[in-house]
C-alpha cells in the first residue's frame, strides 16, 4: 500500500461547522444527547433502525436464494445516517440517493413490501419492477431514487433544489452520496452552483471509508471531506454516522439553514459498512481484515442506541426484543408479499419509455412489428 500523509479517522465526533477546532470534542452526556427529543420519537428511531437492519438481512437471504438479481448493495452498519437525517425532514421534503438505497426508500415512507417486491422485480415493486435495487422511486413520497452512476444524482438534486427556489417553496432537497463520489466532477460542479445560487440542498456524504475495495486514504489527497465545502464558500459539518441522534441534529441544523434561505450544507457522516460493497463482494479480504470489521462492530449504531435508550429508561431490553420481533415479521412478510406479487407482464416492455405512445413516426427501432 502506498504511503499516505493524510490521517486515518480517529474521532467521529462532530466538529464545529467552521472546521476550526483542533481539540477533541468533549464526550456529551446522555442528558445532552437526549435533550429535545420526545420519548416516542426516540423509540420510533430505534424501531426504524431495527427494521432497516432486519430488512437488509432478509434481502441478503433472498439474494443468496437467487430470488433477487443484479447488484444489491446493503446498508448494514450505516443505518444511523439515513434514519437520523430523514427523521429531521418533513414529508414534503425530497430525498435522493445513490444505489445503496433500500433503507432511504423505506425511511421516506415506501412500504417494506413495495421495496422488497422491487428487489424481486415484481409488478408491486415501487418502480413496477423496472428499477430494481438501484432504482427505487416514489413520487407520492417525494423519494426521487435510486441512481446507479457514482455522483450522478448530485446534479439532479441540484435541479430539484433549483425547482424549490423557482417555485418559492418551503422545502428541502436532501441528497446522499458515498465518500468515493466526492472525487467526481458532478460533486464539485453541483456544490459550486448550489452555493452560488444559495439553493436549499443538503448533501450528506456517507463516508463508510471504502469505495468498493479502495480505502478513502488511497483515493483522496485531502482526508476530511467536510473541508471540501470551503472551496465553495459553503457551510459544512461532520456527523457521527454511528449515532442516530447526532445525524438527526446535524441534518436538522442544515435543513433550518436551507429553509431560511441560507443555502446548501455539506455534511460528512462518518460511518462504516459491515458488509461487502455489494452482495457479490466479500465482507473483508485484500482491502480490510476480518479483525478490522470486528473491531468496528463495537460501534454498531443499533447496539449503541439501544444501550443509550435502555440506561435512560426509554426502552427496556424486553421492549427492544418485542420491537425486534415486530420488524422481523415485517421483513419476513415483505418477502412473502414479493414472492406472491406477479412478474410484470410482457406488454410492459414498451410502456413508460415516453410520455405517450401516440406519436408520429417510429419511436423504437427493434423491428419487432407494428407499434
Amino acid at each position, binding site marked *: 500500500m502506498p504511503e499516505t500523509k493524510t490521517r486515518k479517522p480517529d474521532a467521529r465526533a462532530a466538529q464545529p461547522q467552521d472546521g476550526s477546532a483542533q481539540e477533541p470534542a468533549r464526550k456529551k452526556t446522555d442528558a445532552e444527547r437526549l435533550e429535545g427529543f420526545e420519548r416516542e420519537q426516540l423509540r420510533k428511531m430505534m424501531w426504524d433502525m431495527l427494521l432497516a437492519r432486519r430488512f437488509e438481512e432478509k434481502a441478503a437471504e433472498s439474494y443468496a436464494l437467487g430470488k433477487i438479481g443484479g447488484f444489491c448493495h446493503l446498508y448494514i452498519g450505516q443505518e444511523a445516517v439515513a434514519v437520523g437525517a430523514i427523521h429531521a425532514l418533513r414529508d414534503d421534503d425530497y430525498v435522493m440517493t445513490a444505489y445503496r438505497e433500500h433503507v432511504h426508500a423505506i425511511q421516506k415512507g415506501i412500504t417494506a413490501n413495495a421495496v422488497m417486491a422491487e428487489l424481486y422485480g415484481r409488478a408491486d415493486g415501487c418502480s413496477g419492477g423496472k428499477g430494481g435495487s438501484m*432504482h427505487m422511486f416514489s413520487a407520492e413520497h417525494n423519494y426521487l431514487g435510486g441512481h446507479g452512476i457514482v455522483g450522478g444524482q*448530485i*446534479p*439532479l438534486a441540484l*435541479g430539484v433544489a433549483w425547482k424549490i427556489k423557482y417555485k418559492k417553496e418551503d422545502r428541502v432537497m436532501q441528497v446522499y452520496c458515498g465518500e468515493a463520489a466526492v472525487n467526481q*466532477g*458532478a460533486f464539485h460542479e453541483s456544490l459550486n452552483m448550489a452555493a452560488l445560487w444559495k439553493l436549499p440542498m443538503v448533501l450528506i456524504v456517507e463516508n463508510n471509508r471504502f469505495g468498493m475495495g479502495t480505502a478513502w486514504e488511497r483515493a483522496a489527497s485531502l482526508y476530511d471531506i467536510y473541508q471540501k465545502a470551503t472551496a465553495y464558500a459553503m457551510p459544512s459539518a461532520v456527523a457521527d454516522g454511528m449515532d442516530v441522534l447526532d445525524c438527526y441534529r446535524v441534518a436538522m441544523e442544515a435543513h433550518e439553514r436551507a429553509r431560511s434561505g441560507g443555502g446548501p450544507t455539506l455534511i460528512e457522516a462518518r460511518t462504516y459498512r459491515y458488509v461487502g460493497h455489494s452482495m457479490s463482494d466479500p465482507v473483508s479480504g485484500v482491502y480490510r481484515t476480518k479483525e478490522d470489521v470486528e473491531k468496528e462492530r463495537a460501534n454498531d449504531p443499533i447496539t449503541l442506541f439501544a444501550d443509550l435508550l435502555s440506561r435512560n429508561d426509554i426502552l427496556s431490553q424486553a421492549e427492544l426484543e418485542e420491537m425486534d420481533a415486530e420488524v422481523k415479521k415485517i421483513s419476513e412478510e415483505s418477502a412473502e408479499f414479493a414472492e406472491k406479487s406477479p412478474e410484470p407482464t410482457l406488454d410492459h416492455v414498451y410502456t413508460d419509455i415516453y410520455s405517450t405512445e401516440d406519436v408520429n413516426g*417510429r419511436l423504437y427501432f427493434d423491428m419487432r412489428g407494428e407499434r
Partner: protein
Amino acid sequence: MAVITYREALNEALAEEMERDPDVFLMGEEVGVYNGAYKVSKGLLERFGEMRVVDTPITELGFAGLGVGAAMTGIRPVIEFMTWNFAILAFDQIFNSAAKMRSMSSGQFKMPLTFRGPTGAALQLAAQHSQALESQVAHYPGVKVVVPGTPADAKGLLKAAIRDDDPVCVFEGEMLYNLKGEVPEDDDFIIPLGVADLKREGSDVSIITHGKMIHTALQAAAKLEKDGIQADVLDLRSLRPLDTDAILATVAKTNRVVLLEEGWPHGGITATVAALIQEEAFDMLDAPILRVTQADVPMPYAKALEKAVKPSVEMVIEKVNRVLYR
C-alpha cells in the same frame, strides 16, 4: 408569413413559450447578459428576468443534470449547450438520467426537458468543435431528437420540444443561424415531432437527409434537374421518432435512394434508415442504397483537408448518378 432568420425563429419560439408558460426557463452558458454565444437568446434576460434566463458557470454536466432534476419535479427547463460538442461532458446526465427516468420509475416521473445547441461543422474549427452528434444521441431510447434545417422548422420544432413531456434534444445548424426564410406568425405554430417534410418533389431518385444537409441536397437536386433528373428531397426533421411512412413513401415512388448526413457513417442515422428500407421495402429497390457522409476521420483543420472530409454537392450528384446507373 414573416421572413426572418433561423436565429430569430428560435428566439421567437423561446419567447413565446416562456410567455405562455411561467414554468419554462432557459439556462446555459452566456444565455443572459451576453445574449447568447450565437445571440439566440437576445433580449430574453431583460424580458423575463434572471430566474428564467440563467447564466451558468462553465459546467455542462452540472447544469444538464440540474435540468433533469428540475424537470422530474415539474418545471420545464430549456438547457442550452454552447455547442453539442461541449454536451459530450453532459452525456451522462442526458443518457443515464434524462433518457431513463420515466422508464426506471415506471412512469412516475415525466421529463419535460429540452436540450438545445448548434451541431455540425462550421469553418475550420478543427476536430473538437466540428462534430455532428445527432445520430449518436438518437441511439438512446428515451430521448427524442430533432434537427431543423429551415427557420420555420426551427421555430415549430423548438416549440413542440418545449411543450413535449419527454426529453427532446434540438440540434441547430451552426451555419444556419443567419439563414432567412418564411415563418408563420402564429403563437401556436408547432411542427409535431416525428413528421418528415418533403422539401422538393421528384420521381427519379430519393435523397433522404436532415438538418443543414438539406441545403446540400437541394443544391444537388437543382443541378441534377438540368440533366433531366428529378429528385425527391426528404427532410427527416426528426431522428427519433423517425417518420418511417414518409421514408417508405419516397422509396416506393422513386425506387432509388441516396442517404446523406453530416456526421460519420459508422452507426449514423443513414445506416439505420438503410437497414429500415432493406427490411421493409427491399422489393421496391432498383439499385443498392448509397450513402454520403463525412469521411470517417476526426475533422482536420487545414482548409483543403476539411473540404475533402465534408459531404459535398458533388458527392451527392456522384452517388445519385450511380444509383441511376448513369
